[in-house]
């Protein structure tokens, strides 16, 4: 009686208006909370684009807004990857830019002259509100209890796991992708439930939007077929499933193929083959079901079942064959490294080098999900109670996503929605149980006719339930126990809110462009070297000066300094990156021709030694060496950068290769001029540096930012009199050249 599934519905029929009004208000407040908790960064710093990739998205959006959609589509970007250029229009996911472009134009149409930057900065928070709403819808599809949806929405709104990628200013694909992910799943569930082509088409539509927005669409592409496949294996094939899946697959594949970057992947690459396979399987199963209904002879059905298995096996084998023969592209490195976790480290250092591709330690889980991390399994368990099709979906999603999140930190993002849904289910179950005012009276329970009836009903409904749900529900007797549980849950919820706010404000709202540090007296001190250096470039270098830096800073240079770069965060050409790595890790005499060939005018390095800023280039240096070694194993050797005892040092014991490498020289050039003689100190490596610093001949220092975080060097032109730079510098220093014909061996004669 206390909470039987139908109970709220009955109540709802009595006062629907008040309830729906309340629900709308609650959802609005949740959305408001979601948005406002993402504004820390804007309040602390300013309305600025964050980190790295967002800068490219921002630049692309500006291009879109200025030049219109078609020229954006055909955009050939000649200011990155010099001198190769990048076919940007065909190699990005345009969803994000197009979205904000549309918003921009709509606002213009409504005569709101909003700067495009503000739209980009505030896009993620805005969509987080929508995500909360989508989560509400999804959860409502899962369980009948109305409170679960609201709880899930609230969780989704403020959980750090999602905020980490959607604070104001982190203008990245995930900003809208998560909303699309959740909403697509909602539509899919709706379609499976109703078995209507309409909802299936809607699913395909939003799936197409998702494809245009984020590479993570592959998650959907594999999750939905898996869901269908599991349902078939459970013997739950139904026309509803057939209709929804086929309509989704046909339309969705067509939609996804409209994105230039995706193109023919859906029929050529292994990531998409599961969807195709399940599509075929569904056809067979549907056919078999049809035939079965026509002729009920027993043997014939076994024959058909065998037929299904055979065809399935054959087609699977065909797929494998095609993959081996190369018609279907094998798994791309990023996806493959999800399964074979050791793969990337050996074969693709460029993927392994990215920090967000590292595996996740458990504190990260708790940090991002707090109390939900232990409500989550409970919620999953409750889905097993009466295992409807959509709850099967929850289970699959939960297991898969937690595996992926365990392998890659950044995939925590895909785990978060399902965690919110599951834990909301669990939590709402508790609240519904313990917050119902009326408690059962023991004697009614004693003769227990209704109870037994409900037992019968239950056992009729589920032949095999969970062990914990065998007995009938009687409800909670004493108010004290209700009060205890409710009070405890309130404490947990408040704790959760405090945790989320704290994490958001401390961990996730600093735009890594501007660094904040606390002075001894506790006041905040802003370190703005990046922008200082980028604006120096913008103001003091010619329009077409080519900047060479490690690829992490390519997008920022392109966005803030507006100068051509050699490599950037879109790491599509490993060889080019390796070239830059080689130039950085070789002697000047080797690097200079490379830089000349690539028309490099300035070289930019990040050096944290003065400030103790650990994310600097010397710490990333080994990755440059590794990537370069991958292409030139004989010219760059990682081993030569380690001392005999296998240490990576920058002080006196540093290996000659290290000391002569361009990166080392650029980082420490003139550094010991800051200190009394012999006192030069690197505050990142915590080592004393050699007494005399490195000498540069082929490049000269052009700019060094306030805290020495960014140092920019100018590449010299060839010597005017055809000398090599070493001797030219030596001459300018005033020491004489020794008589040239002291050299031994036969004198070489001029022929002309």
């Amino acid at each position, binding site marked *: 009686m206390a909470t039987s599934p139908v109970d709220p519905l009955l109540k709802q029929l009595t006062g629907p208006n008040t309830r729906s009004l309340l629900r709308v208000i609650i959802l609005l407040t949740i959305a408001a909370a979601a948005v406002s908790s993402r504004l820390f960064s804007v309040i602390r710093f300013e309305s600025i684009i964050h980190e790295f990739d967002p800068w490219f998205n921002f630049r692309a959006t500006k291009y879109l807004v200025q030049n219109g959609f*078609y020229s954006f*589509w*055909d955009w*050939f970007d*000649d200011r990155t990857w*010099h*001198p*190769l*250029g990048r*076919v940007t229009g*065909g190699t990005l996911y345009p969803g994000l830019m197009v979205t904000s472009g549309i918003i921009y134009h709509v606002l213009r149409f409504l005569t709101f002259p909003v700067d495009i930057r503000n739209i980009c900065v505030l896009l993620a928070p805005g969509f987080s509100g929508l995500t909360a709403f989508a989560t509400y819808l999804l959860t409502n599809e899962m369980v009948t209890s109305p409170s679960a949806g609201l709880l899930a929405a609230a969780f989704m709104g403020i959980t750090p796991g999602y905020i980490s990628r959607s604070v104001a200013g982190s203008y990245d694909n995930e900003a809208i992708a998560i909303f699309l992910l959740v909403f697509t799943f909602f539509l899919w569930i709706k379609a499976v439930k109703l078995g209507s082509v309409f909802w299936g088409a809607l699913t395909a539509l939003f799936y197409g939007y998702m494809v245009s927005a984020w590479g993570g669409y592959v998650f959907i592409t594999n999750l939905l077929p898996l869901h269908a496949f599991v349902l078939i294996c459970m013997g739950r094939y139904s026309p509803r499933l057939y209709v929804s899946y086929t309509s989704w697959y046909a339309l969705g594949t067509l939609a996804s193929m409209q994105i*230039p970057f995706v193109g023919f992947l859906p029929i050529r690459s292994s990531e998409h083959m599961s969807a195709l396979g399940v599509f075929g399987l569904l056809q067979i199963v549907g056919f078999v079901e049809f035939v079965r209904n026509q002729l009920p002879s027993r043997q014939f059905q076994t024959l058909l079942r065998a037929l299904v298995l055979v065809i399935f096996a054959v087609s699977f084998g065909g797929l494998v064959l095609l993959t081996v023969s190369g018609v279907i592209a094998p798994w791309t490195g990023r996806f493959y490294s999800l399964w074979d976790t050791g793969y990337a480290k050996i074969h693709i250092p460029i993927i392994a080098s990215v920090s967000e591709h590292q595996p996740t330690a458990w504190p990260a889980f708790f940090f991002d999900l707090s109390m939900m991390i232990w409500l989550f399994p409970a919620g999953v368990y409750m889905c097993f109670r009466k295992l409807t099709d959509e709850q099967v979906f929850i289970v699959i999603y939960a297991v898969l996503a937690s595996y992926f999140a365990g392998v890659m930190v950044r995939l925590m993002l895909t785990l978060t929605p399902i965690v919110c849904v599951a834990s909301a289910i669990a939590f709402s179950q508790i609240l519904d149980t313990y917050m119902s005012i009326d408690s059962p009276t023991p004697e009614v329970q004693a003769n227990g006719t209704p109870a037994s009836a409900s037992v019968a009903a239950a056992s009729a409904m589920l032949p095999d339930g969970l062990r914990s749900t065998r007995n009938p529900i009687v409800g909670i007797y004493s108010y004290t126990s209700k009060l205890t549980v409710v009070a405890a849950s309130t404490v947990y919820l408040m704790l959760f809110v405090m945790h989320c706010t704290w994490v958001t404000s401390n961990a996730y709202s600093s735009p890594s462009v501007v660094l904040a540090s606390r002075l001894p007296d506790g006041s905040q001190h802003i370190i703005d070297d990046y922008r200082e250096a980028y604006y120096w470039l913008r103001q003091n270098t010619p329009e*077409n000066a080519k900047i060479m830096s490690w690829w992490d800073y390519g997008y920022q240079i392109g966005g803030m300094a507006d100068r*051509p770069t050699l490599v950037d965060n879109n790491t599509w050409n490993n060889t080019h990156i390796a070239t830059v790595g080689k130039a950085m890790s070789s002697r000047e005499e080797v690097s200079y021709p490379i830089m000349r*060939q*690539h028309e490099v005018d300035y070289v930019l390095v990040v050096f944290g030694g003065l400030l103790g800023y650990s994310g600097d280039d010397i710490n990333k240096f080994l990755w440059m060496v590794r990537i370069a070694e991958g292409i030139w194993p004989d010219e760059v050797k990682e081993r030569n950068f380690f001392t005999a005892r296998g240490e990576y040092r920058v002080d006196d014991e540093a290996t000659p290769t290290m000391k002569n490498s361009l990166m080392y020289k650029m980082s420490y050039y003139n550094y010991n001029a800051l200190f009394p003689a012999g006192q030069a100190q690197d505050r990142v490596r915590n080592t004393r540096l050699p007494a005399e610093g490195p000498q540069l001949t082929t490049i000269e220092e052009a700019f060094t930012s306030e805290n020495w975080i960014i140092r920019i060097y100018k590449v010299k032109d*060839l*010597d*005017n*009199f*055809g*000398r090599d730079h070493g*001797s030219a510098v030596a*001459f*300018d220093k*005033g020491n*004489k*050249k020794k*008589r*040239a*014909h002291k050299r031994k061996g036969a004198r*070489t*004669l*001029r*022929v*002309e």
Partner: protein
Amino acid sequence: MRWLFSFLVLALLGAVQALSSSGSRLLVVLEELAEKDKYSEFWDDLRGRSYTLSFESPKNDKLSIFKHGERAYDHLILFPPKTKGLGPSLTPKLLLEFLKKDGNVLLTLSADHPTPSAIVSLLLELDIHLPTDRNALVIDHFNYDTVSAGEKHDVLLVPAPKALRADVKNYFEVDGTIAVPRAVGQGLGNTTPHLAPILRAGSSAYSYNPKDEAEIVEDPFAVGEQLSLVSAMQARNSARFTVVGSVEMLQNEWFDAKIGAVGSKEQTTTANRAFAAKVSEWTFKETGVLKVGRLQHYLNEGKKNVNESAVGVPEHNPGIYRIKTDVSYTIEISEYTSTHLSPFVPPTADDVQLEFSMLSPFHRLSLTPLAQTANSTIFGTSFVLPDQHGIFNFRVNYKRPFLTSVDEKRQVTVRHFAHDEWPRSWNISAAWVWIGGIWVTVAGWIAFVALWLYSEGVEKGVKKTQ
């Protein structure tokens, strides 16, 4: 356009008031000014070519070749100092700085006094080597002047220089023989492309120090053609630096001295005067100066391009092309010879070449002279862009001995096909099958729906939808 351009150039020349293409302020540095009369004819020649000469002694401490960080003079003639060096205001570093700022230097050596170490180190920087012992001079026992150096054989008679190579113009053509008395031979390093000998010693000459009376010379500094008597260095900014091995050959007495070659009785006059004129002309950029006029590249497709006509059409150099399009490139080069700009005609066996390069050249084409105007040649070619998008450079890099370097680089972007530049599907015959398939499917679907709606009873259909 072209007229306007030439007028402009002429006006410029009028302003400069010199035949040199780079200014007329000429500083002569020699130690005691008394000596300057020995060279009066040389000065007259120079003044005749409307240079404003000013004489300074290196001892003068107010002497400075720079003023407010800029050149105070355009050209420099250095006479060999008798003392240690050229003093604080003419250190090698300053002289190189002078060259870096496009000043031209004519350096003269003499075997009478040992060459100061400052000059030696300066020449070393330019990869010009002098004999190790400072008193060495060039001796030739076969072609010496029988009149003046009957027994010392230290006055060389050298025929007028020929063209250095088949593909190099000769700017030092004089008739008659040149007398080079007591020259300091120079050896030119063969690594740098900036050096070129103007006047070589005869094949039987060698470098020898008369002070030590050795019977035989083992391992002489250099012999024969390797000994350069007058050599030229042209820096990357095409500032010019000429070393004259013997200062005496510029003196009046040698300008019209009677000389007798070995074996021939009759005496002739030297061609030194003409040769000195040629050398100074070249050094002070009166000859061998190239100027690049209009440079343009344009899409050579569709409508006839109007830019070839000489009427004043604004230059039309698009920044972006598409791959596999036909592109034309024209460059206008004129050569300055002492009074005016004239059409530049590359020597036979030589071509002006165009590189279309990204990282490495995709095309290297020799430009053909398309047309000639009053004072310039228009070279040009047209070619099809490679099937490779990226950031390319049109580059004309024409560097030859005795010619100022031409290095013109224009960056263009070559983009890929846009989405609407591919042939439409129905133009591809191979695609007809698929297009047909699509329409057949559509038709079949419609037919099926029609059949279905026709065959199914209405209320049954309603049930289905529920």
